[in-house]
Protein backbone atom coordinates (compact mmCIF):
# COMPACT_ATOMS: atom_id res chain seq x y z
CA UNK A 1 0.00 0.00 0.00
CA UNK A 2 2.76 2.46 0.87
CA UNK A 3 3.87 2.58 -2.76
CA UNK A 4 0.43 3.07 -4.28
CA UNK A 5 0.74 6.73 -5.26
CA UNK A 6 4.29 6.28 -6.57
CA UNK A 7 3.27 3.26 -8.62
CA UNK A 8 0.21 5.09 -9.87
CA UNK A 9 2.39 7.92 -11.14
CA UNK A 10 4.72 5.43 -12.84
CA UNK A 11 1.72 3.65 -14.40
CA UNK A 12 0.79 7.00 -15.99
CA UNK A 13 4.09 6.84 -17.92
CA UNK A 14 2.54 4.41 -20.37
CA UNK A 15 1.54 7.68 -22.08
CA UNK A 16 4.21 9.55 -24.03
CA UNK A 17 2.62 12.90 -23.19
CA UNK A 18 2.89 12.10 -19.48
CA UNK A 19 6.53 11.00 -19.85
CA UNK A 20 7.33 14.29 -21.56
CA UNK A 21 5.46 16.28 -18.91
CA UNK A 22 7.47 14.56 -16.16
CA UNK A 23 10.76 15.08 -18.01
CA UNK A 24 10.04 18.82 -18.45
CA UNK A 25 8.92 19.41 -14.86
CA UNK A 26 9.37 16.47 -12.45
CA UNK A 27 8.29 18.45 -9.37
CA UNK A 28 5.20 19.82 -11.05
CA UNK A 29 4.25 16.37 -12.28
CA UNK A 30 4.79 14.82 -8.82
CA UNK A 31 2.41 17.44 -7.38
CA UNK A 32 -0.46 15.69 -9.17
CA UNK A 33 0.14 12.56 -7.06
CA UNK A 34 0.06 12.19 -3.32
CA UNK A 35 3.72 11.23 -2.94
CA UNK A 36 5.56 11.04 0.37
CA UNK A 37 8.69 13.17 0.94
CA UNK A 38 10.73 9.92 0.88
CA UNK A 39 9.33 9.03 -2.55
CA UNK A 40 9.99 12.49 -3.96
CA UNK A 41 13.57 12.38 -2.69
CA UNK A 42 14.17 8.91 -4.15
CA UNK A 43 12.87 10.13 -7.53
CA UNK A 44 15.18 13.15 -7.33
CA UNK A 45 18.14 10.84 -6.58
CA UNK A 46 17.10 8.52 -9.41
CA UNK A 47 17.96 5.73 -6.98
CA UNK A 48 16.12 2.47 -7.65
CA UNK A 49 16.87 0.88 -4.26
CA UNK A 50 15.48 3.97 -2.52
CA UNK A 51 12.40 3.83 -4.74
CA UNK A 52 11.86 0.15 -3.88
CA UNK A 53 12.27 0.99 -0.21
CA UNK A 54 9.62 3.69 -0.67
CA UNK A 55 7.16 1.10 -1.98
CA UNK A 56 7.90 1.24 -5.70
CA UNK A 57 7.19 -1.89 -7.73
CA UNK A 58 9.82 -2.68 -10.38
CA UNK A 59 7.22 -3.31 -13.11
CA UNK A 60 6.01 0.30 -12.80
CA UNK A 61 9.43 1.79 -11.95
CA UNK A 62 10.71 0.41 -15.28
CA UNK A 63 8.37 2.82 -17.06
CA UNK A 64 9.82 5.72 -15.04
CA UNK A 65 13.40 4.56 -15.74
CA UNK A 66 12.57 4.48 -19.46
CA UNK A 67 12.10 8.26 -19.37
CA UNK A 68 15.86 8.62 -18.84
CA UNK A 69 16.70 5.82 -21.28
CA UNK A 70 17.85 3.54 -18.44
CA UNK A 71 17.89 -0.11 -19.52
CA UNK A 72 17.55 -3.11 -17.18
CA UNK A 73 21.31 -3.69 -17.10
CA UNK A 74 21.87 -0.12 -15.93
CA UNK A 75 19.10 -0.52 -13.35
CA UNK A 76 20.70 -3.78 -12.16
CA UNK A 77 24.21 -2.30 -12.02
CA UNK A 78 23.01 0.71 -10.02
CA UNK A 79 21.35 -1.51 -7.41
CA UNK A 80 24.44 -3.69 -7.03
CA UNK A 81 26.82 -0.72 -7.00
CA UNK A 82 28.84 -2.10 -9.92
CA UNK A 83 29.42 -0.88 -13.47
CA UNK A 84 27.13 -1.85 -16.35
CA UNK A 85 29.98 -3.90 -17.84
CA UNK A 86 30.52 -5.77 -14.58
CA UNK A 87 26.79 -6.46 -14.37
CA UNK A 88 26.74 -7.87 -17.91
CA UNK A 89 29.73 -10.10 -17.11
CA UNK A 90 27.86 -11.44 -14.09
CA UNK A 91 24.91 -12.40 -16.35
CA UNK A 92 27.17 -14.14 -18.86
CA UNK A 93 28.91 -16.05 -16.06
CA UNK A 94 25.52 -17.32 -14.81
CA UNK A 95 25.12 -19.16 -18.12
CA UNK A 96 28.34 -21.08 -17.58
CA UNK A 97 27.62 -22.43 -14.12
Amino acid at each position, binding site marked *: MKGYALNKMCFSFNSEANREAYFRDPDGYCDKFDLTPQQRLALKHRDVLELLEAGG*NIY*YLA*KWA*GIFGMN*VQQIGAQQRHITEEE*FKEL*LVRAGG*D
Partner: protein
Amino acid sequence: MAQLVGGIATSHIPSIGKAIARGLQNDTAWKPFFDGYKPVHSWLDRAQPDIAVVIYNDHGLNFFLDKMPTFAVGAARQYNNTDEGWGLPVAAPFPGDPAFSWHVIESLVGDEFDITTCQEMLVDHAFTVPMSLLWPPAGSRPVKTVPIAINTVQFPLPSPSRCYKLGKALRHAIESYEKDVRVVVVATGGLSHQLDGTRAGFINKKFDLMCLEKIVSDPEALTGYSAHDLVRDAGAQGVELLMWFAMRGAMTEHVAEVHRSYHVPISNTAAAVMLLENSSPLINGVML
Protein backbone atom coordinates in the same frame (compact mmCIF):
# COMPACT_ATOMS: atom_id res chain seq x y z
CA MET B 1 -14.93 -31.29 -31.18
CA ALA B 2 -11.97 -29.02 -30.48
CA GLN B 3 -8.57 -30.62 -30.20
CA LEU B 4 -5.63 -29.50 -28.05
CA VAL B 5 -2.72 -30.01 -30.44
CA GLY B 6 0.16 -28.98 -28.20
CA GLY B 7 1.64 -26.78 -25.54
CA ILE B 8 4.41 -24.24 -25.99
CA ALA B 9 6.18 -22.20 -23.32
CA THR B 10 8.54 -19.38 -24.17
CA SER B 11 10.29 -16.40 -22.63
CA HIS B 12 8.86 -12.96 -23.48
CA ILE B 13 11.82 -10.63 -22.76
CA PRO B 14 11.28 -7.12 -24.23
CA SER B 15 14.78 -7.02 -25.75
CA ILE B 16 13.70 -9.89 -28.04
CA GLY B 17 10.97 -7.61 -29.41
CA LYS B 18 13.54 -4.87 -29.95
CA ALA B 19 15.86 -7.31 -31.77
CA ILE B 20 12.98 -8.41 -34.02
CA ALA B 21 12.09 -4.77 -34.77
CA ARG B 22 15.70 -4.13 -35.78
CA GLY B 23 15.94 -7.32 -37.86
CA LEU B 24 18.80 -8.80 -35.79
CA GLN B 25 17.69 -12.46 -36.03
CA ASN B 26 20.82 -13.43 -37.96
CA ASP B 27 23.16 -11.21 -35.99
CA THR B 28 25.96 -13.26 -34.36
CA ALA B 29 24.79 -12.50 -30.82
CA TRP B 30 21.13 -13.31 -31.52
CA LYS B 31 21.25 -16.16 -34.06
CA PRO B 32 21.67 -19.04 -31.55
CA PHE B 33 18.65 -17.77 -29.64
CA PHE B 34 16.37 -17.30 -32.67
CA ASP B 35 17.50 -20.61 -34.20
CA GLY B 36 15.99 -22.28 -31.14
CA TYR B 37 12.53 -21.43 -32.54
CA LYS B 38 12.98 -23.05 -35.97
CA PRO B 39 11.80 -26.52 -34.83
CA VAL B 40 8.75 -24.84 -33.30
CA HIS B 41 7.98 -23.11 -36.62
CA SER B 42 8.16 -26.44 -38.48
CA TRP B 43 5.85 -28.01 -35.91
CA LEU B 44 3.36 -25.13 -36.14
CA ASP B 45 3.36 -25.49 -39.95
CA ARG B 46 2.33 -29.13 -39.52
CA ALA B 47 0.00 -28.71 -36.53
CA GLN B 48 -1.94 -25.81 -38.11
CA PRO B 49 -3.65 -24.52 -34.96
CA ASP B 50 -6.68 -22.24 -35.46
CA ILE B 51 -6.61 -20.73 -31.96
CA ALA B 52 -3.81 -19.89 -29.53
CA VAL B 53 -4.71 -19.58 -25.84
CA VAL B 54 -1.91 -17.37 -24.54
CA ILE B 55 -1.24 -17.51 -20.79
CA TYR B 56 0.90 -14.54 -19.79
CA ASN B 57 1.40 -11.90 -17.09
CA ASP B 58 0.55 -8.24 -17.62
CA HIS B 59 3.33 -5.84 -16.57
CA GLY B 60 1.23 -2.75 -15.94
CA LEU B 61 -0.34 -2.05 -19.31
CA ASN B 62 -3.89 -3.37 -18.95
CA PHE B 63 -4.07 -3.82 -15.19
CA PHE B 64 -3.01 -1.48 -12.41
CA LEU B 65 -3.02 -2.05 -8.64
CA ASP B 66 -6.44 -0.38 -8.36
CA LYS B 67 -8.03 -3.60 -9.71
CA MET B 68 -5.76 -6.61 -9.90
CA PRO B 69 -7.33 -9.94 -10.89
CA THR B 70 -5.49 -13.14 -10.05
CA PHE B 71 -6.72 -14.75 -13.28
CA ALA B 72 -8.29 -12.80 -16.18
CA VAL B 73 -9.59 -14.15 -19.49
CA GLY B 74 -10.08 -12.09 -22.64
CA ALA B 75 -13.41 -12.13 -24.44
CA ALA B 76 -12.85 -9.49 -27.09
CA ARG B 77 -13.09 -9.47 -30.89
CA GLN B 78 -9.64 -7.92 -30.98
CA TYR B 79 -6.73 -7.33 -28.59
CA ASN B 80 -4.65 -4.20 -28.99
CA ASN B 81 -1.11 -3.51 -27.93
CA THR B 82 0.00 0.02 -27.07
CA ASP B 83 2.91 2.09 -25.74
CA GLU B 84 4.44 0.49 -22.61
CA GLY B 85 6.82 3.33 -21.92
CA TRP B 86 10.23 2.09 -22.92
CA GLY B 87 10.37 2.10 -26.68
CA LEU B 88 9.05 -1.25 -27.90
CA PRO B 89 7.27 -0.76 -31.26
CA VAL B 90 3.49 -1.12 -31.00
CA ALA B 91 2.27 -4.42 -32.50
CA ALA B 92 -0.69 -4.72 -34.88
CA PRO B 93 -3.98 -5.85 -33.26
CA PHE B 94 -4.56 -9.57 -32.64
CA PRO B 95 -7.91 -11.12 -33.62
CA GLY B 96 -9.91 -12.79 -30.86
CA ASP B 97 -12.62 -15.45 -30.94
CA PRO B 98 -15.38 -14.29 -28.57
CA ALA B 99 -17.51 -17.45 -28.98
CA PHE B 100 -14.59 -19.65 -27.95
CA SER B 101 -13.59 -17.21 -25.16
CA TRP B 102 -17.06 -17.35 -23.64
CA HIS B 103 -17.06 -21.12 -23.80
CA VAL B 104 -13.72 -21.15 -21.95
CA ILE B 105 -15.04 -18.65 -19.39
CA GLU B 106 -18.27 -20.64 -18.78
CA SER B 107 -16.28 -23.84 -18.43
CA LEU B 108 -13.64 -22.36 -16.07
CA VAL B 109 -16.29 -20.80 -13.82
CA GLY B 110 -18.19 -24.11 -13.93
CA ASP B 111 -14.99 -25.72 -12.66
CA GLU B 112 -14.86 -23.21 -9.79
CA PHE B 113 -12.22 -20.85 -11.23
CA ASP B 114 -13.86 -17.48 -10.55
CA ILE B 115 -11.92 -15.56 -13.15
CA THR B 116 -12.28 -11.95 -14.29
CA THR B 117 -13.70 -11.50 -17.80
CA CYS B 118 -12.30 -8.78 -20.06
CA GLN B 119 -14.30 -7.56 -23.05
CA GLU B 120 -11.55 -5.05 -23.70
CA MET B 121 -7.98 -6.01 -22.92
CA LEU B 122 -4.69 -4.41 -23.90
CA VAL B 123 -1.95 -7.00 -24.34
CA ASP B 124 1.65 -6.15 -23.49
CA HIS B 125 5.07 -7.50 -24.56
CA ALA B 126 4.44 -10.74 -22.66
CA PHE B 127 1.76 -11.49 -25.28
CA THR B 128 3.17 -9.75 -28.38
CA VAL B 129 6.82 -10.92 -28.20
CA PRO B 130 5.88 -14.64 -28.06
CA MET B 131 3.44 -14.13 -30.96
CA SER B 132 6.28 -12.61 -33.00
CA LEU B 133 8.62 -15.43 -31.99
CA LEU B 134 6.15 -18.20 -32.88
CA TRP B 135 4.68 -16.69 -36.05
CA PRO B 136 7.39 -14.34 -37.34
CA PRO B 137 5.73 -12.81 -40.41
CA ALA B 138 3.34 -10.40 -38.68
CA GLY B 139 1.07 -10.10 -41.74
CA SER B 140 0.43 -13.83 -42.01
CA ARG B 141 -0.38 -14.81 -38.43
CA PRO B 142 -2.94 -17.59 -38.90
CA VAL B 143 -4.44 -17.90 -35.41
CA LYS B 144 -7.15 -16.27 -33.36
CA THR B 145 -6.21 -15.68 -29.76
CA VAL B 146 -7.55 -15.88 -26.21
CA PRO B 147 -5.35 -14.12 -23.63
CA ILE B 148 -5.31 -15.43 -20.07
CA ALA B 149 -3.47 -13.16 -17.63
CA ILE B 150 -2.04 -14.41 -14.32
CA ASN B 151 -1.09 -11.85 -11.67
CA THR B 152 2.65 -11.82 -10.94
CA VAL B 153 2.84 -8.10 -10.09
CA GLN B 154 1.32 -7.83 -6.63
CA PHE B 155 1.43 -10.46 -3.89
CA PRO B 156 -0.40 -12.60 -2.98
CA LEU B 157 0.23 -14.56 -6.19
CA PRO B 158 -1.53 -17.81 -7.03
CA SER B 159 0.44 -20.92 -6.10
CA PRO B 160 2.11 -23.24 -8.63
CA SER B 161 -0.47 -25.85 -7.65
CA ARG B 162 -3.35 -23.48 -8.38
CA CYS B 163 -1.90 -22.52 -11.77
CA TYR B 164 -1.40 -26.18 -12.64
CA LYS B 165 -5.06 -26.82 -11.77
CA LEU B 166 -6.09 -23.82 -13.88
CA GLY B 167 -4.34 -25.57 -16.77
CA LYS B 168 -6.31 -28.75 -16.12
CA ALA B 169 -9.56 -26.78 -16.13
CA LEU B 170 -8.42 -25.11 -19.35
CA ARG B 171 -7.95 -28.51 -21.00
CA HIS B 172 -11.48 -29.46 -19.93
CA ALA B 173 -12.72 -26.20 -21.45
CA ILE B 174 -10.89 -26.72 -24.75
CA GLU B 175 -11.87 -30.35 -25.16
CA SER B 176 -15.55 -29.63 -24.46
CA TYR B 177 -15.86 -27.02 -27.24
CA GLU B 178 -18.17 -28.28 -29.95
CA LYS B 179 -16.50 -26.76 -32.99
CA ASP B 180 -13.75 -28.64 -34.83
CA VAL B 181 -10.93 -26.23 -34.06
CA ARG B 182 -7.30 -26.94 -33.34
CA VAL B 183 -6.01 -25.20 -30.24
CA VAL B 184 -2.45 -24.60 -29.04
CA VAL B 185 -1.79 -23.46 -25.47
CA VAL B 186 1.07 -20.96 -25.18
CA ALA B 187 2.62 -19.94 -21.86
CA THR B 188 4.99 -16.99 -21.66
CA GLY B 189 7.59 -15.77 -19.18
CA GLY B 190 10.72 -16.84 -17.33
CA LEU B 191 12.93 -18.51 -16.77
CA SER B 192 15.05 -17.38 -13.81
CA HIS B 193 15.66 -13.64 -13.51
CA GLN B 194 15.43 -10.79 -11.04
CA LEU B 195 15.29 -7.10 -11.92
CA ASP B 196 14.91 -5.49 -8.52
CA GLY B 197 16.98 -5.19 -5.37
CA THR B 198 20.50 -6.09 -4.39
CA ARG B 199 20.00 -9.53 -5.96
CA ALA B 200 19.34 -7.98 -9.41
CA GLY B 201 20.90 -10.13 -12.13
CA PHE B 202 20.17 -13.38 -10.27
CA ILE B 203 19.99 -16.37 -12.64
CA ASN B 204 19.74 -19.99 -11.41
CA LYS B 205 20.63 -22.34 -14.25
CA LYS B 206 20.51 -25.45 -12.06
CA PHE B 207 16.98 -24.70 -10.88
CA ASP B 208 15.82 -23.81 -14.42
CA LEU B 209 17.12 -27.07 -15.85
CA MET B 210 15.51 -29.05 -13.03
CA CYS B 211 12.17 -27.32 -13.72
CA LEU B 212 12.40 -27.99 -17.46
CA GLU B 213 13.05 -31.65 -16.76
CA LYS B 214 10.24 -31.98 -14.20
CA ILE B 215 7.74 -30.10 -16.37
CA VAL B 216 8.11 -32.91 -18.90
CA SER B 217 8.45 -35.96 -16.67
CA ASP B 218 6.96 -35.19 -13.26
CA PRO B 219 5.10 -31.83 -13.14
CA GLU B 220 3.29 -32.66 -9.91
CA ALA B 221 6.68 -32.60 -8.16
CA LEU B 222 6.77 -28.85 -8.88
CA THR B 223 3.33 -28.15 -7.44
CA GLY B 224 4.73 -28.49 -3.91
CA TYR B 225 6.58 -25.20 -4.35
CA SER B 226 5.01 -21.96 -3.15
CA ALA B 227 5.19 -18.73 -5.14
CA HIS B 228 7.68 -17.50 -2.51
CA ASP B 229 9.83 -20.60 -3.12
CA LEU B 230 9.93 -19.64 -6.81
CA VAL B 231 11.01 -16.10 -5.92
CA ARG B 232 13.85 -17.55 -3.83
CA ASP B 233 15.01 -20.13 -6.38
CA ALA B 234 14.17 -18.50 -9.72
CA GLY B 235 14.32 -14.80 -8.80
CA ALA B 236 11.57 -12.25 -8.17
CA GLN B 237 10.52 -12.28 -11.84
CA GLY B 238 11.41 -15.96 -12.31
CA VAL B 239 8.07 -16.49 -10.60
CA GLU B 240 6.77 -16.27 -14.18
CA LEU B 241 7.29 -20.04 -14.14
CA LEU B 242 3.67 -20.02 -12.94
CA MET B 243 2.59 -19.64 -16.58
CA TRP B 244 4.66 -22.68 -17.58
CA PHE B 245 2.94 -24.74 -14.87
CA ALA B 246 -0.48 -23.66 -16.16
CA MET B 247 0.44 -24.76 -19.69
CA ARG B 248 1.68 -28.10 -18.37
CA GLY B 249 -1.57 -28.58 -16.46
CA ALA B 250 -3.44 -28.26 -19.75
CA MET B 251 -1.55 -31.21 -21.20
CA THR B 252 -2.23 -34.88 -20.43
CA GLU B 253 -0.33 -36.78 -17.74
CA HIS B 254 2.18 -38.09 -20.26
CA VAL B 255 3.71 -35.78 -22.83
CA ALA B 256 6.29 -36.02 -25.57
CA GLU B 257 8.86 -33.26 -25.56
CA VAL B 258 9.19 -32.19 -29.19
CA HIS B 259 11.69 -29.41 -28.60
CA ARG B 260 13.54 -27.50 -25.90
CA SER B 261 16.19 -24.80 -25.98
CA TYR B 262 17.76 -22.80 -23.15
CA HIS B 263 19.93 -19.72 -23.55
CA VAL B 264 21.66 -17.51 -20.94
CA PRO B 265 21.54 -14.57 -20.89
CA ILE B 266 19.03 -12.67 -22.98
CA SER B 267 19.02 -9.24 -21.35
CA ASN B 268 18.91 -10.08 -17.60
CA THR B 269 17.13 -13.39 -18.09
CA ALA B 270 17.61 -17.09 -18.71
CA ALA B 271 15.58 -17.62 -21.89
CA ALA B 272 13.90 -20.87 -22.88
CA VAL B 273 11.39 -22.38 -25.25
CA MET B 274 9.69 -25.76 -24.88
CA LEU B 275 7.20 -27.59 -27.10
CA LEU B 276 5.10 -30.49 -25.80
CA GLU B 277 2.58 -32.86 -27.39
CA ASN B 278 0.15 -35.07 -25.52
CA SER B 279 1.15 -38.71 -25.56
CA SER B 280 0.22 -42.09 -24.13
CA PRO B 281 2.35 -43.90 -21.58
CA LEU B 282 4.79 -46.49 -22.86
CA ILE B 283 4.01 -50.01 -21.61
CA ASN B 284 6.90 -52.38 -22.24
CA GLY B 285 8.22 -49.89 -24.76
CA VAL B 286 4.97 -49.87 -26.75
CA MET B 287 2.84 -46.75 -27.00
CA LEU B 288 -0.79 -47.49 -26.18
